[in-house]
């Protein structure tokens, strides 16, 4: 397969996954913003929820160049339909669609039509329209379109290298996102000793679980109260939770084993290293190192893996 084709397919799926994750993140932010602030004790510090999507995506500077204040409406607009924000849902879907348009010969017709439909619909949406009656239906729609695209991909696409690069893009983006969402807790509540296990804590952890479709999974596994320790276990180490880091790395490692050959071993080796970290990891160890520090190290490794995939498959240099 042409490297350029692989590159376009990889970024197509990364951007669809990104659009979905932004929808999830904004939805959880929206829900958090509805929490009663008064349950906070005096002296407790609570980061404004609407700053979260900006912090997680590294967009705060970009945002404050356009807006002077942190308004829910502005953040929502900025993150959903603002074409000038390269990480907005609109821009992500546009990029995904442009990648697909360039490579429509490499994907199935159904995939192209599904993604083109999504793009045509989002292009015609106005902020007034998605804001009316609550933003959640819009986020659900974005998630649905992403689910649909994934299903169409599974149901219609030939299992060739292109399929592998599409899956690779999906899981690298997802692993990146789950790690960032988990790290949100670090930014949200700067805990004082007494509030761990309190109401705010509970709401925040449950919202976080919901944002990655893991709330009922958690209930199913533990049938018990929500604790940070277990949330980390579910979203980092359990490989039966579809958006956990371990589940993502299972896929990534397997895909790269299939793509490797003797001239292209480094991406597989690095993926194996990260995978081993999760496969043989223990929650206690992660908490000993500090969850925030551990997640930062993980994100760095994922970034390095992306670089290796680029170097060996997507934009290789030749003599």
């Amino acid at each position, binding site marked *: 397969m*042409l490297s350029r084709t*692989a590159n376009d397919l990889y970024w197509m799926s990364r951007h669809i996954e990104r659009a979905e994750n932004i929808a999830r993140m904004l939805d959880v932010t929206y829900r958090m913003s509805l929490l009663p602030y008064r349950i906070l004790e005096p002296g407790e510090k609570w980061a404004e929820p609407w700053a979260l999507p900006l912090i997680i995506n590294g967009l705060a500077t970009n945002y404050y160049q356009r807006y002077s204040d942190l308004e829910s409406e502005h953040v929502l607009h900025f993150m959903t339909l603002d074409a000038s924000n390269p990480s907005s849902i609109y821009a992500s879907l546009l990029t995904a669609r*442009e990648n697909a348009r360039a490579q*429509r010969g490499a994907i199935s017709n159904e995939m192209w*039509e599904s993604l083109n439909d999504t793009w045509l619909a989002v292009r015609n949406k106005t902020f007034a329209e998605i804001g009316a009656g609550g933003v959640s239906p819009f986020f659900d729609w974005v998630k649905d379109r992403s689910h649909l695209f994934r299903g169409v991909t599974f149901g219609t696409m030939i299992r060739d290298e292109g399929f592998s690069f599409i899956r690779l893009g999906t899981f690298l983006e997802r692993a990146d996102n789950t790690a960032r969402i988990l790290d949100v807790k670090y930014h949200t509540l700067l805990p004082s000793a007494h509030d761990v296990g309190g109401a705010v804590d509970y709401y925040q952890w449950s919202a976080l679980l919901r944002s990655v479709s893991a709330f009922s999974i958690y209930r199913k596994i533990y049938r018990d109260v929500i604790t940070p320790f277990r949330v980390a276990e579910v979203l980092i180490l359990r490989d039966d939770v579809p958006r956990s880091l371990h589940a993502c790395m299972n896929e990534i490692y397997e895909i790269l084993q299939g793509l490797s050959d003797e*001239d292209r071993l480094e991406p597989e080796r690095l993926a194996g290293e990260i995978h081993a970290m999760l496969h043989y990891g223990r929650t206690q160890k992660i908490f000993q190192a500090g969850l925030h520090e551990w997640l930062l190290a993980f994100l760095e490794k994922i970034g390095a893996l992306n670089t290796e995939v680029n170097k060996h498959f997507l934009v290789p240099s*030749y003599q």
Partner: protein
Amino acid sequence: MTAPPPICFDEMYGLGGEVLPHYRRYADWLAKLLPERLAQKRQEADVLFQRVGITFAVYGDEAAEERLIPFDLVPRILPADEWHMLERGLVQRVRALNLFLRDIYHDQSILREGIIPPRKALENAQYRSVMQGMRVPGDTYAHVAGVDVVRAGKGEFYVLEDNLRVPSGVSYMLENRKMMMRLFPELFALQEIAPIDHYPDLLLDTLRQVAPPGVVDPTVVLLTPGAYNSAYFEHTFLAQQMGIELVEGQDLMVRDQTVYMRTTRGSKRVDVIYRRIDDDFLDPQVFRPDSLLGVAGLFSAYQAGRITLANAIGTGVADDKSMYPHVPEMIEYYLGEKPILNNVPTWQLRKKDDLHHVLEHLHELVVKEVHGSGGYGMLVGPASTMAQRAEFRERIIANPEKYIAQPTLALSTCPTFVDAGIAPRHLDLRPFVLSGKEVRLVPGGLTRVALKEGSLVVNSSQGGGTKDTWVLER
């Protein structure tokens, strides 16, 4: 169903106002169709085309960056016998044009024998001296030709233009058929309509046939200028249908006079390039040095016989409008046959007498730029204003050799959906002729229709639409 007597030959009514035999079944079916159902089908077609993303880009028109070509629901139908005549005529014409190209780039006997003035070929901007004396596989130059045919007068066919460089439009031909079958499957049960969807197979087979000698299982690729080219949809469509890689210049590289593509498994050798890039942009080392679309060193590989380009470099010398008047002579010279298809009488404005005549009759003639295409830079006399004619006159006088003129043909019409209902609109036909070891084509071609009342310009860039084209099997 009745219609006013047509002002020119009509595909459905001929000259007499009565439905012609080959249109009878369709006309009966149409008469029984409820208008609401038709309106609904039209909408359905729009949605489907939008969804599938069958678009083209119009240069210099940013707002309409991706536009749909209007698709008309009334098919253009050709009876079997007319098609057979057309087919024979097209094969004859394209064979002669390929023989001409071989001759021009080798012995030049047609020039030496004084049948065509040597100056006309050798000083032509489309003549590529780098091709002189170079052998190409099978002596085939124009592997894909899109010959524009119109019908005029009492219904006789004329060739308007031979497009031998990178003719486009075949994807619309194929998509239009798919659309008609999806919208009106019952019509295809009513009569035997010749299938066309094997075109990509024929094209791939043709491209494989012309691989460099000795290559057993040739790797064929389609070279596109990229996603911003107006015909990009067609490039992706054809690459997909043929199951070949769609490459851009940046995906290819030349090492030891061999062309490779950059893949996820390292570099892979390429044997045949179906290129949809003009000659000028193919290789910055030989042609335009500023080209970012091409591949440095491609020509050296071509010259070494390590790669086949389809179409070959330098085919423009044969489809140029100044060469067009000589095609009937080429047919007689190379094949010893009488031309089956008519040429349109053409005035060449570099000749004094012709220039004089044309300037006197601008209001009734069509004037075209010799190197123009896409309907740009032409004057349709009867439809022009005084000011347009005055402006064109100046341009002609400044550069007479840049122009030719032809009588305004009363192009045939076909019933077409317009805002006011169904009305006759002018059309043409572009069949696609494939030349490898043999010369072949699928029945029909792309029918383009001028949607503006009275307009004779069918080009999509000028607001034209398309129709499905049916060749009846009996």
